[in-house]
């Protein structure tokens, strides 16, 4: 039974990686915009839940509806005012979003103070052969699976997904076919931000909400997307699965910090062997 619990925990770790990196896989994997402020978008999702909780909103409503909405709109705003000037200039994008990241972190610290705010939602716990597993773990795994399936379906089987993928591949051709690339970029960035906000809100009950909570996730999110490679969904699943198992199994054997180190070490070695990520070599024809 212990091995079953370990498996559930590994799945939960992988689901966590999927959650924090889906928004980034759209913004970075598809749009090629390196958003260093990704962690701060997560943090804003967390703060949306905190604020909504103070206003008396149902926490589930705040987590699943309000947080993606608020962060998505914020993403659209940032894209229009700031990011759109940097398309095609990767290095400048890096620097600009890093500035944005520090700015957001500082602003939130000024406004809300540098303290951890807890968010409590309870789903009880489930009995697995005498060992108890938090119900929230199952919830996270389910949401991560739903997000992956929904993203796959939208990208592969809807016109919206086709337009988005086409525009990212060749904006000039898309424009010639009466599609406004600028609007597509804005919408895609908004959707990526919304997914990030959702992830931040979902992780808030586990980690607590602090202005610096994004820093803890940004490295893992980037490493997952990069290790995944060009095929964004298959890549995210395979990288999150591999890295999630490595970090969680190491965590069981030692401490969570060593688990983190193991994750990053494996990722760096992986990039030495497969410089284009997992899907640069395997499953090349998937999305």
């Amino acid at each position, binding site marked *: 039974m212990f091995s079953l619990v370990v498996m559930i925990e590994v799945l939960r770790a992988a689901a966590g990686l999927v959650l924090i990196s889906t928004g980034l896989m759209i913004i970075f994997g598809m749009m090629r915009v390196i958003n260093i402020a990704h962690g701060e978008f997560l943090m804003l999702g967390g703060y949306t839940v905190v604020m909504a909780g103070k206003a008396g909103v149902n926490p589930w409503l705040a987590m699943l509806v309000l947080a993606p909405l608020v962060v998505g709109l914020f993403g659209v705003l940032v894209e229009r005012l700031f990011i759109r000037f940097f398309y095609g200039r990767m*290095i400048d994008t*890096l*620097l600009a979003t*890093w500035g944005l990241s*520090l700015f957001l972190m*500082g602003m939130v610290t000024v406004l809300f103070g540098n303290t951890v705010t807890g968010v409590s939602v309870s789903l009880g716990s489930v009995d697995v052969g005498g060992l108890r597993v938090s119900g929230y773990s199952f919830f996270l795994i389910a949401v991560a699976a739903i997000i992956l399936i929904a993203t796959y379906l939208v990208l592969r089987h809807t016109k919206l997904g086709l337009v988005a993928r086409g525009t990212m591949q060749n904006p000039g051709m898309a424009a010639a076919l009466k599609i406004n690339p600028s609007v597509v970029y804005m919408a895609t960035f908004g959707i990526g931000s919304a997914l990030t906000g959702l992830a931040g809100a979902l992780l808030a009950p586990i980690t607590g909400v602090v202005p610096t909570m994004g820093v803890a996730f940004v490295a893992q999110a*980037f490493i997952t997307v990069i290790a995944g490679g060009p095929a964004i969904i298959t890549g995210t699943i395979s990288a999150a699965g591999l890295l999630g198992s490595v970090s969680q199994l190491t965590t069981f054997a030692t401490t969570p*910090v060593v688990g983190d180190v193991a994750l990053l070490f494996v990722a760096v070695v992986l*990039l030495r062997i497969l410089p284009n990520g997992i899907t640069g070599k395997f499953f090349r024809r998937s999305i």
Partner: protein
Amino acid sequence: MMERSDLLATAAAVLVGLVLMFGLPLYADPFQVMQLTLYVVLAIFALSLAFVWGVGGILCFGQGAFFGLGGYAFAIAAINFGDTTGACALALLVPALAAAALGYFMFYGRLNDVYLGVVTMVFSLIIWKLINSTAGPEWHIGAARLGGFNGIPSIPPLNVPGRPSDQLDPLQIFQLALGLLIAVYVVMKILKSSHYGRVAIAVRENETRAALLGYDVRFVKLLVFTFGGMIAGMAGGLYATYQAFIDPNVFSLEMSAKVLIWVMAGGLSTFLGPIVACIGLQYVALYLAENTVVNSQVVLGGILCVLVLALPSGIIPALQDLAHWSIGRIRIAFRARSEVALQDGAA
């Protein structure tokens, strides 16, 4: 070899540095000179990235990691040995080895610019996490407790090599730091205009062409990166001994962001620019953070956003362009006036 004007500029900069090095301790307020030491140390740190990014074209987002490794290596060794001679050597060696190891994975894996940035940043974050979690008494290397987020206090000051009892006073540490800054500046200038520097610049400009000309691009980058890591470590060691204290914030993203901003603001193509920008922006950031409600992160982030948006080539090159432009305008105006005068005379 350096061009003549470049040689003159370097000589002038070195002269100014030497005058400050020997003059300030004699004439300025000792407390202020001590405070200046921090700026000098950070300027060495700025030079390390100016070399890696400006000459080698390697965008390192985790330069703070090597700075911090240098500082921690110095602190741990100095506390254990009781003498700082070996500690100084380790402050150079540990970051250089770390940079070489990380560089091996990055350059021999042929990661491109953007991935390089992300991987170096991740490297720095992971050390930050690791050191932060070492607060308990079970985490120690020899006699030195790592202290986790509390940092390592009471790091001994530098002493004359081989004589632990002959400790340098704060003014001497200032002179040493400034001397090292001048030395690093000169060495980098010479390296940049040497054969190796030119190969590195060729690799930066066009990797494929440099490779086709028979240069091992990966090895060239590895050397530049390792050298940069070593210089950052030197700055970190000085920082640790100057503050007599070091904490994991040296590994934070803010530290790496700061140095990047200095180099960007100072201009990528120069060494003097980042030094000036480092000192100037540190003053500005300190002033703003002390006198307004916003904190230093807001200021840093704001500066970075504005820089990238408005002045991608840097503040100091932009000022130079402005100066050239206004001199040009004055010349044109002057010439126009004299032409008018000539025409008047002819009429």
